[in-house]
């Protein structure tokens, strides 16, 4: 009878030990795995990366414009017959976002009819300053814009 009693005590103890063992394992994993995930680089959007992918070169028709955010600022990218051109999309007058005028092939602001040429220079309307330009490059079929 003492033996049975001893055995049952041992089983009870071992069960608690097993639970503690599993608990320790789970806690350890729960602490290490997220840390490893944290350290895994977040590609495509590293901090301070002022280079943004705009799209595929193949699907971009001539005289088509796209807007993208680079380092927190909207940028207008246009495919012209002389290559890509990118400029700040924020009109220097009162901050509206500019668009490409496909007919006249220059850049127009819908708010107060400001006009800019494809180098960002003011050709008409109230803006006091030209649009700052961004660097565009095509690498392996993808178009990138950077400051």
């Amino acid at each position, binding site marked *: 009878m003492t033996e049975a009693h001893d055995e049952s005590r041992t089983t009870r103890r071992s069960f608690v030990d097993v639970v503690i063992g599993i608990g320790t394992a789970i*806690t350890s994993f729960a602490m290490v795995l*997220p*840390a490893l995930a*944290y*350290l895994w680089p*977040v590609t495509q*959007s590293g*901090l301070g990366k002022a280079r943004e992918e705009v799209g595929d070169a193949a699907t971009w028709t001539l005289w088509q414009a796209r807007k993208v955010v680079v380092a927190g600022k909207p940028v207008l990218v246009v495919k012209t017959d002389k290559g890509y051109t990118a400029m700040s999309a924020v009109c220097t007058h009162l901050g509206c976002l500019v668009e490409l005028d496909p007919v006249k092939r220059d850049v127009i602001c819908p708010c107060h009819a400001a006009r800019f040429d494809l180098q960002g220079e003011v050709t008409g309307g109230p803006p006091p300053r030209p649009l700052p330009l961004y660097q565009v490059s095509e690498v392996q079929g993808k178009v990138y814009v950077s400051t």
Partner: protein
Amino acid sequence: MPIAREFVDHQVHKRLPPHTGWLHVFGSLSLLAFVSQVLTGILLLVYYRPTTDEAHKSIQYITGEVHFGWLYRQVHAWGATLMIVAVTLHMARTFFMGAYKKPRELTWVVGVLILLVTIVFGFTGYLLPWNQLSYWATTVGTEIAGAVPGIGPELRTFMLGSENVGGETLSRFFTVHVIILPWALAFLVGLHLFFMRTQNLATLDPVGEERKYPPEAGIPFWPVHVAKESCVALVMLGVLITLSVTSPWEIGEPANPLETPEAVKPEWYFLPTYQLLKYFTGSLGKILGIAVSMVPFLLLLLWPFVDRSPARHPRRRPVATTLGVIGIVLALFFGVLGHLSETHRTFLGRTYEFDVYGVPRRAEPRPTPRSNEHAEPGHSRAQPEDEGQADLPDES
């Protein structure tokens, strides 16, 4: 190495006094909090950028893009509060049980230094996210340094690295927070643990009359006390994670030197001193204020040499116990006053406006501002996600 093995063995299985109970877990809790801060701090360091241009953005990045970044940022921010709470509770326990008395005076002194270092940790770390709260809380917090007699303005400029809080301040606070203080604290904690281990925990017997307890009555550190401490540690971890999810710290607006938010206050652990200093005005008054607010810390530091009575049990040292309780009550009182000052609150249906000194006056009910960043200085919580939009009451 057999000597090392023996040492470790002895340390691990050391017997603690029989009365060691649940009140004795705060020391290891503080240590655990410190370790947690170091580990999460290292992780944050991987992505944090300590310049005025990038600091705020890096916090955005960590919170929004890095996998589990939000978790580590919140655990680190809440861990700071937890560490201060743990250290304070540990200190209170030690105080009320007279464990600082001979021969443990030096352990206590090192402990007070640890508390101070922890507070400076909190102060320097607070600036690093570089949001409006950081910037202005630091401005308010360092303002008092300028009132120190003689060297005030120079002291302040030295701390800030320039006339006002700026890129230089960020750089300095970062250096202090990330390399100087961790080593300082590691050294102090090491010293503290060394003393504590050599002398073992104090009993509640008076000085000079410590009874020796039979070894088998003592509580083995491992596995008994550690089992108890592990329970507390796990609960602490759970609390940290829960707070990270339910009450996250905001990313906030980037620091703007040109725009002061309303009623900026320092973090909660500074509130008692901050509020106390408000009552001392004028150039002479400010000096007096600084002196008065330093008294509690000096008292704490030198307490084992001030309190010479041999009794350890709290009931046998009514003076010390009473003083301790008064100290806590005063701290709470000024802390609460500081929290209520410059706010608009409703109690039991009546609205009160608290002025800068914490004095309440009846006021018209004013609606609660939406943005917690402006209304609740200190910890600014992110808004719960918008659901259940209420109907507009009748405008008539």
